């Protein structure tokens, strides 16, 4: 190695050490096929959530590849932030990203105009040297592509907070080695539901989204106090769309252009690339549920581009919220369409023992300028059913489970609707503000809240101002193992049998209408892992 090469590498290593403190230290995400992992979470205390988010490159294992992606605090996706109405949330964003994914197989055009310009607006240089001042000026202003791709900020997508100042201001620019202190005042009447945070610096939003930079924000409120919902095992699922260069495992830093075929984007210069759709940073994770168990899923489509037509084989989705807005009553859906940024909250009721696919059915969503996606449209003419996202839900049998039965007419969850509001609890912020969930004062036995601590719950929820019929309650039976305070456990936690058995015992409802889960035609046995 000659002296020049040595000094060059030494300088690169030093810069990398400053700008990339986490690259070699970050824990890897789980391999595919593992049980779905729960995301780490932080929650407000005493009306305040004060937290720091570091953005830096992290090595992530996806299937048999090691990807180098920018992440929040080393996680793909970022941690869950839980707040309550009236809280203040303070986020310190620190940008420790470095340039990555820059293909060196072509010099950028030195004097390029914006591709949206027309031939008449750009003019032609009189010589290559004419371009030098322009290129130098772009570099000084930080407007070159590599500089733009590592400038960032945070958008609290869906939160009804100020868009100015140190709050949800998407015009803030945080360059590498810089930081920004955000402060958000959550309104006291903020609806309870799922939102999310992600970079929103104009010019690099998609690029950083393709790295999976995203994280859930959950506003907890009245709907979470509804006993039937509070009782359920909650899962937060974040679907990411990772666009990865085949040769370097990094998100390409190129001028992105749409293409045809399975990978809908390429760049200038062109590089071979692939797309991965992960759930909580995992490919094809297994999601466990028990026969008869109900689970509350909060699902975020954090894909920058892909709408997900979400299905679970042989199971309906009982939607209770959309985009952070709780519904007045559950809505039974055979599937859900989630475009980029959409969140859906729904309840899944475990059916017969078996193994079922959770997947996004392929359809033609069009491209920029193409048709608007619709869930009523048939799949594209290409193979009838191809999977963009797949995880597996397995039903298991065990003894001692605690089972919550879905109400007879699924009408036990009732909102209080003030004048001007609608029962849908959807579509607009004003509607959302008018829809509140209340619980009746009828006391019941102590039960565990979501985090495992004992609390006093009510056995039913009734509307405070509406005149709907008093609801039927969910009934629970069985026993649950004791859980240390502060430990988050599945609602029906415990050990699983080593293999699934179609004839195994199930968490049966105590009475009333039985859910319509059909017998599985794919009941099989496969090894499972022990639960926590």
């Amino acid at each position, binding site marked *: 190695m000659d002296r020049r090469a040595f000094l060059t590498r030494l300088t690169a290593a030093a810069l*990398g050490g400053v700008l990339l403190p986490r690259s070699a230290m970050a824990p890897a995400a789980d391999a595919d*096929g593992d049980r779905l992992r729960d995301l780490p979470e932080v929650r407000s205390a005493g009306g305040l959530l004060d937290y720091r988010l570091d953005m830096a490159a992290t090595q992530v294992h996806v*299937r048999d590849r090691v990807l180098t992606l920018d992440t929040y605090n080393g996680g793909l996706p970022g941690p869950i932030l839980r707040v309550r109405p009236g809280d203040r949330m303070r986020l310190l964003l620190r940008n420790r990203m470095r*340039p*990555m*994914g820059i*293909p*060196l*197989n*072509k*010099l950028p*055009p*030195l*004097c*390029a*105009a*914006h*591709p949206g*310009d*027309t*031939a008449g607006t*750009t*003019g*032609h*240089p009189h010589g*290559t040297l004419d*371009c030098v001042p322009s290129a130098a000026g772009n570099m000084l202003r930080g407007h070159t592509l590599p500089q733009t791709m590592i400038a960032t900020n945070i958008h609290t997508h869906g939160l009804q907070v100020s868009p100015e100042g140190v709050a949800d201001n998407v015009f803030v620019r945080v360059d590498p080695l810089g930081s920004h202190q955000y402060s958000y005042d959550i309104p006291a009447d903020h609806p309870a539901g799922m939102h999310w945070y992600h970079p929103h610096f104009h010019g690099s939003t998609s690029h950083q989204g393709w790295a999976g930079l995203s994280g859930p924000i959950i506003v907890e409120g009245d709907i979470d106090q509804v006993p039937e919902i509070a009782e359920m095992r909650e899962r937060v699922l974040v679907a990411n769309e990772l666009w*990865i260069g*085949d*040769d*370097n495992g990094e998100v390409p830093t190129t001028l992105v*252009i*749409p*293409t*045809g*075929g*399975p*990978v809908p984007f*390429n760049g200038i210069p*062109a*590089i*071979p*690339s*692939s*797309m*991965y759709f992960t759930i909580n940073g995992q*490919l*094809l994770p297994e999601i466990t549920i028990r026969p008869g168990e109900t689970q509350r899923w909060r699902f975020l489509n954090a894909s920058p581009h892909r709408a997900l037509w979400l299905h679970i084989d042989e199971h309906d989705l009982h939607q209770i919220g959309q985009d952070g807005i709780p519904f007045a009553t559950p809505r039974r859906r055979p599937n859900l369409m989630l475009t980029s940024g959409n969140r859906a909250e729904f309840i899944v009721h475990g059916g017969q023992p078996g193994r079922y696919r959770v*997947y996004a059915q392929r359809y*033609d969503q*069009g491209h920029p*300028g193409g*048709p608007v996606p619709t869930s009523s449209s048939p799949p594209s003419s290409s193979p009838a059913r*191809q*999977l*963009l996202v*797949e995880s597996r839900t397995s039903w298991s049998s065990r003894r001692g489970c605690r089972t919550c039965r879905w109400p007879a007419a699924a009408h036990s969850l009732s909102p209080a609707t003030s004048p001007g509001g609608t029962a849908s609890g959807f579509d607009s912020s004003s509607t959302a503000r008018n829809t509140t969930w209340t619980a009746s004062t009828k006391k019941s036995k102590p039960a565990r809240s979501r985090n495992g601590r004992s609390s006093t719950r009510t056995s039913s929820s009734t509307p405070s101002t509406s005149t709907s019929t008093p609801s039927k309650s969910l009934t629970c039976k069985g026993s649950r193992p004791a859980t240390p305070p502060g430990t988050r456990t599945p609602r029906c936690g415990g050990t699983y049998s080593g293999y699934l058995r179609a004839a195994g015992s199930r968490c049966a409802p105590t009475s009333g209408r039985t859910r319509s889960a059909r017998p599985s*035609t*794919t009941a*099989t046995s496969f090894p499972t892992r022990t639960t926590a």
Partner: protein
Amino acid sequence: MRRRYLAIAALTVLLLCTSSAVAAPGSDDGGGQPLTNGHAYVFTQQQRDNLFWWNGTWMPQTVPNGAHIQVQLPSDPIHWIPDTGPTCQPSPTADLVPTWLLPLRGRVDLYDRSTLPNEGRITGTSTISVFDYHVTGLGITTICLRPDPPATDPELLGFPAGTPPFYVVTVIVGVPQLTVP
């Protein structure tokens, strides 16, 4: 005769095993992931020699020896005909033809062509014609496609305004790909 029975029995067993393996519940098909374009360097009408908005300051990109290059062009009613004749030459950059800088020539072979549906996305076209090439050797290589029928207005081809009404892309073959460490 006995051998024939044995052969039929073996074939029957093989077919049964094959079909049961395909239909086995819980078989892992990988979920169709990742989505991949077969490790291709994909070029489109937006990615060609000397687009007008590059203002003459373009340089051909490099690809490794043996690279798969895929060209996607809007088509129907326009059809594209590969041009491998002497008229297929690199476009000038900074008033120079790149072959002056690198006189070696790589080899390009068209090995597949197909179409993708593209109805209603690019005005005046309904499909995307896909051409798959292998490039080998070391040096400059140019891929050219001519429209049939010929057109003078690039927008009739679904091309950006200001671009030539035919397709030319030049690459330098045989250069290993590098990225920022």
